[in-house]
């Protein structure tokens, strides 16, 4: 296989990510999927919003669009409709994709436009300094939930299945080979494919919730897959008792796969005016 460095803009390094952040593992897994599929670098476009995960597109040697906060699926929609031969991959985060950009994400899913969306969920806003996100578990500490989060969290995959996404999967940053496999599968799926990647943020989420550094957090993420309860639910510093218990383990793998018509916008022969 090709050295993944072939796909990197090494001139753009060093990158902005913190030590222990798993986003780099996710990027490598993605580039290996690109390599497996032998995608043409000139025809691969990556579109991102704003946040730590979105900064990944700056470091890859494809056509890259670093747009505005939450709007990546909308930019990607125009790009794909205007040039269908491009492979278009959206990189977003949990705040970018599920808070400010939730509307764009669900409508892209509903249309079944042929995009692949990678949503890197680190349970917190990292770029802005550790504020709570729609994915922050109840009870978890963030800079804007110092006494523990009292809001229920989104299940991104359930949301996207509900919105009509024809391919939905959840993978763990702790499991890179599985990530590559699912990413390659998603990119070959005709229509809208969505992958939630459970990533980490040791700098804020880990530090605020005493979950350790990158290695400890990845271990914790791996245990979630085995059905082990989120360690937060038993944390003694959490004063708030979650109203709906954090799921004991997040379902991983391909959760939804269906074949339905792929959206290409209104195009084709002129509409008969008679």
């Amino acid at each position, binding site marked *: 296989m090709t050295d993944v460095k072939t796909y990197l803009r090494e001139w753009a390094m060093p990158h902005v990510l913190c030590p222990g952040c798993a986003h780099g593992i996710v990027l490598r897994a993605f580039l290996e999927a690109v390599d497996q599929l032998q995608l043409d670098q000139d025809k691969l476009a990556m579109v991102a919003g704003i946040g730590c995960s979105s900064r990944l597109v700056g470091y890859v040697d494809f056509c890259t669009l*670093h747009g505005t906060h939450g709007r990546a699926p909308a930019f990607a929609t125009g790009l794909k409709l205007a040039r269908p031969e491009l492979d278009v991959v959206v990189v977003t985060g949990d705040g970018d994709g599920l808070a400010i950009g939730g509307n764009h994400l669900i409508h892209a899913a509903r249309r079944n436009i042929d995009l692949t969306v990678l949503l890197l969920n680190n349970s917190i806003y990292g770029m802005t300094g550790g504020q709570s996100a729609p994915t922050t578990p109840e009870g978890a500490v963030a800079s804007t939930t110092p006494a523990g989060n009292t809001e229920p969290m989104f299940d991104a995959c359930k949301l996207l299945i509900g919105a009509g996404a024809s391919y939905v999967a959840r993978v763990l940053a702790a499991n890179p080979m599985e990530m590559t496999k699912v990413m390659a599968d998603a990119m070959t799926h005709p229509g809208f494919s969505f992958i939630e990647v459970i990533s980490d943020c040791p700098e804020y989420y880990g530090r605020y919730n005493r979950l350790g550094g990158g290695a400890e957090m990845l271990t914790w993420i791996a245990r979630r897959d085995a059905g082990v309860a989120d360690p937060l639910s038993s944390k003694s510093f959490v004063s708030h008792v979650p109203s709906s218990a954090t799921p004991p383990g997040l379902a991983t793998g391909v959760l939804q796969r269906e074949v339905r018509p792929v959206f290409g916008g209104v195009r084709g022969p002129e509409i008969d005016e008679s």
Partner: protein
Amino acid sequence: MSETQLVQGNEACARGALAAGCRFYGGYPITPSSEIAEHMVRLLPGVGGTFVQMEDEIASLAAVIGASLAGSKAMTATSGPGFSLMQEHIGFAAMAEVPCVVVDVMRGGPSTGLPTSPSQGDVMQARWGTHGDHPAIVLAPSSVGEVFDLTVRAFNLAERFRTPVIVIYDEIIGHTRESVVLPESVEVKERLRPNGDPDVFWPKTAPADGVPPLPAFGDGYRFHVTGLTHDERGFPTNDAEQAGALIKRIHAKVEAHFEEISEVETFMLDDADVAIFAYGVVGRSARETVLRARAAGVKVGLIRPVTLWPFPYSHVAEVAKQVDTMIVAELNLGQLIGEVERAAASQAEVVGHLRADGEPIAPSELLTVVTPIGGRAS
């Protein structure tokens, strides 16, 4: 052969866009602009274009920018509330230098305001609506025929200068049906594309005129596009020198080409003691007012900016030197009058005739303002 047709303003906009080479429309329904989308969805498929109705106006302009980066000429249309939502991406397009056209069919505001009534309440928003320092090109047609012409011109300017261009008119112009002869063909400009080695291509290195070439995604040039302040390689930077150079260049490419961009119409100004400054639909009323006042012996003329931004300061200053009084008539509580006052610099008295109640300014109404002022002068 060109023939006389009865065409609605919003339809003329759609047909102008097609003539200019627009091949992508992304939009969201809003009164009084929706007919533009309804015409585009019928026209685009026949020329190999694509139409999409997006989930909101933010997404509409995002999709337009995405399509433009894919190499298509692209546009959206909206009205005040949607125009507010589009400000985020007008700024992005200005910063990332992505050609696109935004049409704002103005209705009464603020907020949802008067959805079916005319207004000129967005003319400062068109200049300053998005955050940060940014250039602006804004064109204001005052007839159905001019909507067609200026929509074509908007695409040409957007492509020429790699910048968003706004076409702004009001509900009356949008919904009026007029007899027009639309041209069979129009002059169309295309964006400059690179032809050098893709391996050494830097997307923000500009030639002397300040407008860098723009390849389409998929053309073999792999480059980065960002709304963050960036260097010539297109990559984010915090370096003060590079930040300053970028912001100055995106301004200079518009300011240095003022003569190419600006268009001002004057009417019966040569011997005038009084000048009416009006644009868009009020420009029409003002022209009729001039004719009626002249018939009554009042020496009045009209200056009508067709390009609102960049504002024709020197042109207005020349008029101010010549006349005693400038009457600024606009459908808002005083927006461009401030610019006229700046330009006039006390060389002429500047009087406003302003209304923002959803009603147009009729010639008979404007005549009651012009006549006593003109009478005083003579």
